[in-house]
């Protein structure tokens, strides 16, 4: 089972390593982890995607709550939230496949953000699933480099802030 943990933490030095250390020490998976500031300066938000059975999911939440730098933990399913992931892909192109690539970008609402005479950087910001689809579509082209941010997520408005 996949779960998203939205973890509000004190914006202190060393908090990231404490949280990441907790996952590795207790043998919990991290599929992705994103950290950034929130609207309040002294609070950071970590969005962690993890998977495991029900007991593991419950334990992750409890152990996160036990950490003294953690202010609040929200756990939710992907379906209860708006999830986005930003990905940058550097691809090699040639005269033959250039149009194809551009069409694919059009269909998937990706943007070409940088270009040289044989390389381009494509940016896509979408749900993790659609980002995956787009990357699959580009498999036929040679991908030189790729960087994914991992998932950021907020619970949907109708879910309210429980």
């Amino acid at each position: 089972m996949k779960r998203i943990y939205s973890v509000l933490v004190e914006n202190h030095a060393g908090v990231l390593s404490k949280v990441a250390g907790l996952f590795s020490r207790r043998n919990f998976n991290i599929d992705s982890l994103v950290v950034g500031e929130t609207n309040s300066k002294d609070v950071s938000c970590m969005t962690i995607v993890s998977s495991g059975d029900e007991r593991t999911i419950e334990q992750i939440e409890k152990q996160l709550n036990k950490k003294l730098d953690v202010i609040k933990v929200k756990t939710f399913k992907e379906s209860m939230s708006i999830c986005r992931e930003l990905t940058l892909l550097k691809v090699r192109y040639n005269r033959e496949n250039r149009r194809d690539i551009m069409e694919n970008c059009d269909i998937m609402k990706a943007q070409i953000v940088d270009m040289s005479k044989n390389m381009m950087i494509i940016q896509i910001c979408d749900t993790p699933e659609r980002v995956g689809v787009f990357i699959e579509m580009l498999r036929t082209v040679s991908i030189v480099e790729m960087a994914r941010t991992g998932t950021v997520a907020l619970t949907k408005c109708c879910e309210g802030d429980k």
Partner: protein
Amino acid sequence: MNGSEAIVKCLLEEKVDVVFGYSGVAIAPFYDALGETNVKQILIRTEQNAAHCASGYARISGKVGVCAVTSGPGATNLITGIATAYADSIPLVCITGQVNSELIGSDVFQEADITGAAESFVKYSYLIRDVNDIPRIMKEAFYIANTGRKGPVLIDVPIDVQQQEISKFSYPEKINMRTYKPTVEGNAVQIKKVVKELAKATRPIICVGGGVHLSGAVDEIRKFVKDNCIPVVSTMMGIGVMASEDPYYFGMVGNNGRPCANRALNESDLLLMVGARVADRAVNRPDLITENKVLIHIDVDPAEIGKNAGPNIPLVGDIKHIFKKINEFEDKEDLIHERTEWIKTLNQYKVDMPEKRPEIDTDKYVDPMQFLQNLSRKLPKDAIYVADVGQNQIWSCRWHLVREGRFLTSGGMGTMGYSIPAAFGAKYAAPKKKVVAVMGDGAFQMSMMELSTMRQYGMNVALIVFNNGYLGMVREYQHYKLDDRYNMVELHNTPKLDKIAEAYEMKYLRASSQAEAEALIDELMKKDECVLCEVVVDPMDLAK
């Protein structure tokens, strides 16, 4: 006032009267400031034992144990002690010196990233960057260590911070931490559910763990047990919650426990797990525990509930508070008769399931069972008994009879060498009580350097070394599981203990037969001085 003086002032605010530790340049300013006060400084002989001393002290005094060591190797040596305290939820504040703030990260002499290294063994840690944070951090550290699920807190203080002037010292009255609010009162609805479920149980049992001691809830539990006529078993850390010979008490559970205790647990229809982790040594298959019974799990740490076994009724809060509430409920109804029958059945198990013992040649060796039973009968009722780790620990759990005293051991981490320094700390906390440390020859050699500490500070502890020339517990494992291939377990050339005692100017007693053992115990009871007792036991003896 400089940083060191500020730290010391905070210790005085927290009514600290002793600091266990080891000095070094990076912590010297702190000890310099401490020397100006009446706080006792105890210089142990290796840093790990400073934490064990503080642990023994904390467990007997009910206060936070404090230790302070230098940077680098001093700090890393402390880690095993911190981890031991963490595993048993013992409240400690550990202060470590650190190199100059500006040099942190440059791998200078005696620098270690101790907050990083100790992260998974502390409840919380601080690296003080600003001297003005000292009062707040010290206040928080003591609060964190001694509330909720107790545990060690580490404070790393760079030497320059110890020397800087603090602009204004004021010790905070209140704690203001948005991230830490431990639950004390149990949820009223859950408590009612517990009471309701109890009212249906004809074969209930309560399993008490170390949390009962930590919460100071022994009296509440005893009252609950008597009022409701409920038999009690315990984990290793829960030994002493009930007096060993209490008619409601059936011993320690688990793979090293008493057969009748395990049977009682299995046959119950309701199990109240109180302040215990449901860990592997106590409960063999925690996932199966709810198959034939209702499980109620009461613990101050919500993460413990459901970690190893999913309870029917979880209840988070401080045990003392919760049992005060439970004891207020009056509907004791008419189950007492059935429960009396249940206790009768369990008492029959006690008779039917005697503990198996190998044949011991008592002309050549001392039988640890007889020895420990005799010893505990002759000890004062309120004696403090510290067991080390190994066969001696299992024997101690089984046969030492706790009456009004305490039983201390390293239950979670199983740290060999714990007993001597912990006994030291316990004796410091209760100087009038008889304190006995029981260990094997392996554990003794891990901590025997502290004999000089005992002599230096006049701590009169009775040390009993079961000498069999082996790491007995591992040898026993090899006997059962590895076809008697005894690798890495023979301890040869152990120094002559009489010579050791002489070197440290201690009294020495020895027994290598049952008759001598009786005489040894009688002799020991007459002495109020540091005594080293060598008790020769059969190397082939078993704990199971």
